[in-house]
């Protein structure tokens, strides 16, 4: 195979010996990118851990002020979107174009629902004066500890905001894939973009899997 000059296709670029080799290279490259993302989010998780350890009681009160039901619903919505995404990847592996489009659109819609609920939560925070700044006030926290409560909400907005930004980028990627699939670009032989986009989407899901308990759940019983 490798000895004879081959016709270049999407599934087998000239620099690769086999299609499997090209596929493995793409997967590995995506994972290396995701690891840089793990470290990126890791710094924030670390900051959260340090400050939660420093001000456990204030963080417990602030954490309990978040809407538990909305957070749980959003977790389920995001897990559903991961499920439809993996079905889209499976459809791509089987070369079922219509199914790819259907599942990508479902994933896109569920991603949109997640972002909508998130926006609604943020709007609530604005109205409750839980946005860090001059007018910040959290009920149930002493005046001299309002600053520590602001720390929690700074971390909350930074972490959920960065996560939401990744969701928005994911929505853009899904839209691109839907149009490309409509053009018939992906077949059972070549579906790498769908596959690596799936890895990205699941990664963003995993970040939320950790954000949900850390921000919404851990100190709820201490209130």
């Amino acid at each position: 195979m490798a000895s004879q000059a081959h016709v270049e296709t999407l599934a087998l670029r000239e620099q690769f010996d086999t299609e499997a080799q090209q596929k493995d290279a793409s997967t590995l490259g995506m994972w290396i990118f995701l690891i840089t993302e793990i470290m990126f989010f890791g710094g924030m998780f670390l900051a959260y851990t340090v400050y939660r350890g420093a001000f456990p009681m204030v963080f417990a009160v602030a954490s309990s002020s978040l809407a538990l039901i909305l957070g749980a619903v959003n977790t389920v919505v995001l897990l559903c979107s991961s499920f439809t995404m993996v079905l889209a990847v499976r459809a791509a592996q089987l070369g079922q174009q219509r199914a790819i489009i259907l599942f990508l659109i479902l994933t896109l819609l569920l991603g949109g629902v997640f972002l909508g609920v998130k926006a609604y939560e943020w709007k609530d925070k604005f109205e409750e004066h839980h946005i860090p700044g001059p007018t910040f006030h959290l009920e149930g926290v002493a005046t001299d500890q309002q600053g520590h409560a602001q720390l929690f909400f700074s971390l909350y907005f930074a972490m959920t905001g960065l996560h939401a930004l990744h969701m928005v980028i994911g929505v853009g990627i899904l839209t691109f894939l839907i149009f490309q699939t409509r053009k018939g670009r992906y077949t059972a032989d070549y579906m790498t973009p769908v596959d690596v986009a799936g890895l990205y989407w699941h990664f963003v899901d995993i970040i939320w899997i950790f954000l949900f308990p850390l921000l919404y759940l851990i100190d709820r019983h201490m209130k």
Partner: protein
Amino acid sequence: MSAHIDSVKTYALVFAGLIFLTVATTYVATVDLGPFSVVVALGIAVCKMLLVALFFMHIRHSTKLTKLVVLGGLLWLGILLTLTMSDILTRGALGVPGR
């Protein structure tokens, strides 16, 4: 194409497991387990991460190189968390001469 294609049933079971764990972690949060609530919440989160990574992200069928790279990434995250926390948590452990 050497890709291994999982059945819809496998994915559906994993999905059901993920939903179950989400309900479980939300419920457990309302129960007072003292310091163990952190352990339980993070334990469930790690289980969910493993389900998503192994099945949805196909780590089960990945090459050894990919698996090694993923483990390497988690190792570095572990170094980041462990070394920083070992500093933060032990700063008061030894007295500082002259203070």
